[in-house]
């Protein structure tokens, strides 16, 4: 507990850190509110800003962007009925109707307040559970660490996608491409093709910016109206919720925050699933309310859940090295740039970084509330920015981002190539979040796997020989079995629906 509080709190409130928190929140709100961008692209595009920064402000900046983007997604969902992020799609259900009734400021007020409370609860859970989880994981040997990483990947495949084989392909492709470069255990060059720039393998930033940002640019110029974003007027409004209104939503906000935090901890689920699950739960709990017509509880449930997810998703990363979501996987690279591998060792080796980041996370929530309160109206004006302008800004950011990590033009080429690959992967519904998670975790998976087998002299029993590994094995088995059962149930439901439709047609 001592380390928990025994650091220089004053340093956390340095001008640099506070600037990162407030600027990150504003940037996050902007990328979140622009449909087609979102938190992952926002964090990826801002990674280059962190190259020359210390770890703490870097992570605070990226966390603030993530938090800000989760709230920002609700701005366009409420004002336009077009969710800025996937997770804000549930917010559209009640947010947009309330706006159309003439209460945009009220709808955004519910969203902001719920986002802030959700973020705060997620942060508190992160703060409380990081130490016990890290201690638990600290005793893990290579075999268990490999299994934990596999659990994360299998969660992504089974829970994060409807098409399991395609998700599996994305994942394996990520693992395979991560093997490029000099082997960390033997030093042998693998798939380097004699290119010196390939000795360190494919660079995260180049792959991420290409895969997410450039592919989204291709989608933008290909399918959207380039001249304008379809908005000509974003009226002035005051983001405000009164105390009595807050009291009415508080119970739902707290319940949804718990759901969001849990969904964030489980890799593969993420904010979108959390928002929809909370929305369904609040509908079930309040059958008397007319959801879909501008019900504040509907907005609050979704927004508190998706922001609570952020803290939840950071927990497995900081304690076990497993990113809870695609955005957190991108955020993890900020640690790797500084030569730090997130995981059980983080808390013991680098407490000077971990605790300020955790407390900074809580400050980020307050920053979200303050920035959201005063800048939502301004952020909403970004919705009138034409897409051709966004395309140019994003392209320049991609060029700088991919080059800036090690001043290497080869990485710019890699980003362009991955932009094309990402575009086709998305078109053909290969989930790129699976690829990203595998690419980030690939190195530690291979290292732990090979080290475990080397230490056990080739015996595969190393993966089932200790109580901890047996528990993780059972968790993996449960995931696979539940996925199979879900798939069988879905097939049965589909067949029954088809039969009913057929019967109806015959009857007609």
């Amino acid at each position, binding site marked *: 507990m001592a380390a928990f509080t025994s650091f220089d709190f004053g340093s956390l409130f340095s001008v640099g850190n506070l600037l990162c928190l407030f600027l990150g929140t504003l940037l996050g709100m902007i990328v979140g509110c622009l449909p087609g961008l979102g938190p992952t692209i926002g964090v990826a595009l801002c990674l280059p800003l962190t190259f020359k920064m210390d770890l703490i402000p870097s992570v605070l900046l990226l966390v603030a962007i993530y938090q800000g983007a989760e709230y920002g997604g609700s701005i366009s969902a409420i004002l336009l009925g077009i969710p800025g992020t996937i997770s804000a799609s549930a917010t559209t259900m009640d947010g947009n109707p309330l706006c159309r009734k003439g209460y945009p400021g009220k709808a955004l007020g519910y969203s902001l307040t719920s986002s802030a409370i959700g973020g705060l609860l997620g942060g508190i859970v992160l703060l409380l559970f990081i130490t016990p989880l890290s201690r638990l994981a600290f005793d893990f040997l290579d075999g268990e660490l490999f299994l934990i990483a596999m659990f994360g990947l299998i969660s992504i495949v089974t829970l994060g996608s409807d098409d399991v084989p395609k998700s599996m392909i994305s994942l394996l492709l990520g693992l395979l491409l991560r093997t490029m470069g000099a082997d960390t255990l033997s030093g042998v060059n693998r798939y380097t093709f004699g290119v010196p720039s390939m000795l360190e393998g494919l660079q995260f930033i180049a792959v991420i910016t290409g895969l997410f940002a*450039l592919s989204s640019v291709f989608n933008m110029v*290909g399918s959207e109206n380039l001249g304008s974003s379809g908005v000509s007027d974003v009226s002035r409004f005051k983001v405000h919720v009164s105390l009595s209104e807050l009291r009415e939503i508080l119970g739902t906000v707290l319940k949804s925050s718990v759901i969001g935090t849990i969904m964030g901890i489980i890799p593969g689920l993420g904010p979108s699933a959390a928002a929809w699950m909370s929305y369904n739960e609040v509908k079930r709990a309040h059958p008397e309310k007319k959801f879909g017509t501008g019900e504040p509880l509907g907005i609050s449930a979704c927004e508190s859940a998706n922001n609570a997810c952020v803290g939840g998703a950071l927990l497995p990363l900081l304690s076990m090295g497993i990113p809870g979501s695609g955005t957190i996987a991108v955020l993890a690279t900020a640690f790797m740039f500084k030569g730090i591998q997130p995981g059980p060792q983080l808390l013991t080796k680098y407490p000077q970084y971990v605790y300020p980041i955790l407390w900074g996370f809580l400050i980020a929530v307050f920053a979200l509330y303050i920035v959201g309160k005063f800048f939502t109206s301004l952020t909403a004006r970004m919705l009138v920015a034409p*897409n051709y302008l966004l395309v140019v800004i994003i392209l320049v950011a*991609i*060029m700088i981002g991919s080059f800036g990590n090690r001043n290497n033009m080869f990485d710019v080429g890699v980003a*362009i190539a991955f932009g094309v690959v990402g575009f086709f992967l998305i078109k053909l519904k290969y989930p790129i979040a699976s690829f990203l998670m595998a690419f980030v975790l690939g190195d530690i998976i291979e290292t732990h796997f090979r080290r475990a*087998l080397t230490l056990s002299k080739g015996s595969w029993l190393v993966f089932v020989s200790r109580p901890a590994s047996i528990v993780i094995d059972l968790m993996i088995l449960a995931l696979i079995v539940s996925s199979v059962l879900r798939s069988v149930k879905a097939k049965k439901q589909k067949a029954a629906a088809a039969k009913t439709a057929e019967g109806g047609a015959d009857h007609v």
Partner: protein
Amino acid sequence: MGYKKATCIANGILIALAIAFIVMALNFKEGFVKLVISEKYYPIGVAGLLIVACIISTIKTLAGDDDHKVEIKGWKNILLVLGTCIVFALLWKYVGHFYVIAFVLMSGLMYVLNPEPHSKKKVLKTLLTNLAIVLVIYVGFERLLNFRF
């Protein structure tokens, strides 16, 4: 092109890629450190699983109902953006002068993508916007963050 056909082609390409990775892995030079699981077995295993997953995905896709048309809307704009990126990278590598290249290419791209009809105002707006972008990069990245382009 139909979704089924496109998926089959994509899976075929991935299978070819996996086979290439396996063949290359078999020809890795031996390392000085002898490990129980050498540097070649892990990529071979992953590539093998990738082939299996591609086959399963192909069968599942062919057996499924979904065969919507996979369209690449606005492919001319996509090629334009891709071409600009490639020219940007090549000019930057072989000519240098990042700011000049960024200003010229991005102005050109923005002008073409802007659907407004040609006018002096449009040209001026494009040039001023890109000048502002380049200035922000210079101040933000080069002066404040010590980037060197």
